[in-house]
């Protein structure tokens, strides 16, 4: 039940997107997100959707699998949509009870909903095609220059990879404890809000204890293997750019330029 959350999950398969250097994918995600906010006109969004569709196609991750993770975000998306719809001042189109829908509101709501969905799908493509380890490796290397300014880059990356590593473990643990308490007659979806909150205690207490125990074990294991932070530490699989990575950077540049031209500069007339 709880395992349905796919956000931040890795989908194992072999594809060109999976094989790309994680740094490329991080940069690409950032570029993609920027492109979404640069764009002002509908044509730009069409370009973004096409680009994303092509990437998803190349990643061999089934679209259905990706969408399952989106369900969790749907609620957030709806809230944003309705807030924008009703709370944007401007020329009134019609009003419902005390709420007024404006022309500007519709435009903004649609725009934000499209931006948000693309943003979430775009970043989930990155996490679905990159193992957490690779992701943090990439991040560490990208942020390396910040070390000059005494930013503990290695430690931050290590923390991130541990946190990511713990998500599935804790989900599994939650599932197990939930079942164990259900075997003792507990139910987690009955009663009003207060009763529901109360019924969480038998789940949360063992979960916290287990998390602390695991953290303690991990710290012990790291120390036993002489972990002393990032200094002088080398990688087993150092990151190297390949030809395909340079090509991807090139494609990214072209995409960004296209987005700016199509979505901003060219006067399409106001379609939205």
């Amino acid at each position, binding site marked *: 039940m709880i*395992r349905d959350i796919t956000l931040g999950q890795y989908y194992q398969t072999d594809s060109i997107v999976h094989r790309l250097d994680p740094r490329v994918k991080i940069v690409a995600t950032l570029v993609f997100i920027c492109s979404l906010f640069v764009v002002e006109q509908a044509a730009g969004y069409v370009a973004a959707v096409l680009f994303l569709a092509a990437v998803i196609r190349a990643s061999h991750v*089934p679209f259905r*699998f990706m969408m*399952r993770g989106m369900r969790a975000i749907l609620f957030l998306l709806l809230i944003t949509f309705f807030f924008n719809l009703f709370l944007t001042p401007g020329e009134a189109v019609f009003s419902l009870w005390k709420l007024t829908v404006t022309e500007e509101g519709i435009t903004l709501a649609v725009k934000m909903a499209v931006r948000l969905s693309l943003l979430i799908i775009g970043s989930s493509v990155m996490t679905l095609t990159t193992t957490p380890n690779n992701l943090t490796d990439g991040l560490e290397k990208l942020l390396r220059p910040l070390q000059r300014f005494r930013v503990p880059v290695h430690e931050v990356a290590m923390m991130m990879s541990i946190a990511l590593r713990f998500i599935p473990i804790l989900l599994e643990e939650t599932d*197990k*404890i939930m*079942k*164990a*308490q*259900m*075997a*003792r*007659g*507990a*139910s987690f979806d009955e009663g009003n809000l207060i009763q529901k909150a109360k019924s969480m*205690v*038998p789940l949360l*207490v*063992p979960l916290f*204890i*287990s998390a602390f125990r695991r953290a303690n074990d991990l710290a012990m294991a790291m120390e036993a293997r002489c972990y002393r932070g990032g200094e002088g530490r080398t990688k087993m699989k150092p990151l190297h750019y390949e030809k395909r990575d340079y090509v991807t950077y090139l494609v990214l540049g072209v995409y960004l330029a296209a987005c700016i031209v199509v979505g901003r500069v060219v006067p399409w007339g106001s379609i939205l």
Partner: protein
Amino acid sequence: MALILDHVTYEYGNGTELLVRALNDVSLVIPDGQFIGLIGHTGSGKSTLVQHLNGLLKPTSGNIYYNGEDIHDRDFSKKRLRSKVGLVFQYPEHQLFETDVFTDVCFGPKNLGLDKKEVQLRAFQALKQVGLPDDCFYQPPFDLSGGQKRRAAIAGVLAMKPEVLILDEPTAGLDPKGRDEILDLVASLRKENGMTVILVSHSMDDVAEYVDRIVVMNKGSVCYDDEPKQVFAHKEELEAIGLSVPQVTDIMHALKKAGWWSADTSVITIEEAKKEILRQLRKG
């Protein structure tokens, strides 16, 4: 009355590409009062199977009947089922959460909606049954030793007065003494309360002495389902799927192979082995 599994198949990760078939067409009849050992290598589907018996998992296909009723019928109460079929999970001490042992044991009966007196009475009885010393009752569960914690957790299920008690690897992670204590406890519980007991394990030595029947699982299917002696006769086949026969049976096999005498290799307990060896020595 009995628990019946009728062609049960279960797949994890339904609806995704990451499909694992953990149970494959399993049919079993579990009559009242039987002591069953459920044995299988890691990942053979033992835990998955027992979670079906109290309705925690719903079969992908197939049915489960308790006393003749389909447990996934709309009007069949899961809560009642769970009070009748008590399941003690692997490492049950990890589910303790109350501030003291007694209150934690009360959790199960309280969920059944019993009145306070009955709840406390049951908790008290259960704690007595598992043999926890009185001065542990009001201690935080986290102050107990590993074996004591496990007893407390078992008491938490016993307090619901189940008719069927299922223990998933109750001896995992215990030292030999703790292991023997838990196994003796299970045997005595069975004798006193006359319940049906299913003991999950991957060690034949754990179960050989106690059980009436052994069900061997391999890769999601039942591959042997018989009396212990009959099952242990398949020494080679068992070893091929990562299991072993009890150590004494192994020794008798070795003796026979060494040509010492025509030893009876169906021996499964140390007591029987002793008798058999003495008999052979007198004869020879």
